[in-house]
């Protein structure tokens, strides 16, 4: 299972990075591979590559503002959530996203 995700928030200095850290931590616990791109006040961090998009099984959109270059992820199975949800319960969200994909 290869997951890619993007986090972003209104100010771009706190939730973007917290949500990214929460997703990585939860993915580690669940034993799934994840790459998280942060779209925040430091610009795009850990940009997801075309190869990673091509190999991805699932895209988690945890951006609370419009995605930058969101067209990159068009056509991928997508799970929509929010930064604050991810920060509060990343593990539950990851499980839900994976379950939804497998349905």
């Amino acid at each position, binding site marked *: 299972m290869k997951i890619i995700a993007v986090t972003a*928030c*209104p*100010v*771009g*200095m*706190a*939730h*973007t*990075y*917290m949500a990214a*850290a*929460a997703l990585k*931590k939860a993915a580690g616990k669940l034993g799934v591979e994840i790459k998280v791109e942060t779209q*925040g*006040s*430091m610009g795009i961090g850990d940009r997801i590559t075309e190869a990673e998009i091509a190999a991805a099984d699932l895209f988690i959109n945890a951006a*609370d503002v419009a995605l930058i270059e969101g067209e990159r992820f068009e056509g991928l199975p997508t799970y929509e959530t*929010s930064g*604050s949800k991810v*920060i*509060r319960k990343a593990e539950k969200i990851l499980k839900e996203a994976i379950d939804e994909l497998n349905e």
Partner: protein
Amino acid sequence: MQINQMLTTKTMNLNLACHRRDEVIAQLAQCLYADGRLNSMDGFIDDVIQRESVDSTNMGIGVAIPHGKTDHVLRPSIAIGRSAHPIQWDEDEPVHVVMMLAVPESEKGTTHLQMIAKMATLLLEEDFVHDLMTLEDVDQLLQSIKRHIDAV
């Protein structure tokens, strides 16, 4: 970038006397203003409350992280407040600790922004939150914060 350029014993108050969200925001903004970190206290308070109105920064673990990246901030700063009395932050669970983050709108240096992001991310660590909730004095808490920052 050293954390102690952003966060000092002057920007911490472990005995907040107020229990309403806007009063807590104002009291922490006052700490930052008195320490020469803001050019407009009222302006910054408005910015922070505006951000809260988009989506509450209550994390659901007894901590809220109000923040602003605006022209009313002179240098990257962090204020920490704590209250033994629950602070009703939103319609969700009340909070006891408030970590307020302030960054100038013009801030381009990633070292400052990285440090701010790091501080926010530390709130995902249970033992760090435990220290925030329980350590008795500001010096002990500063030590804990430095230790956790260095460990990231």
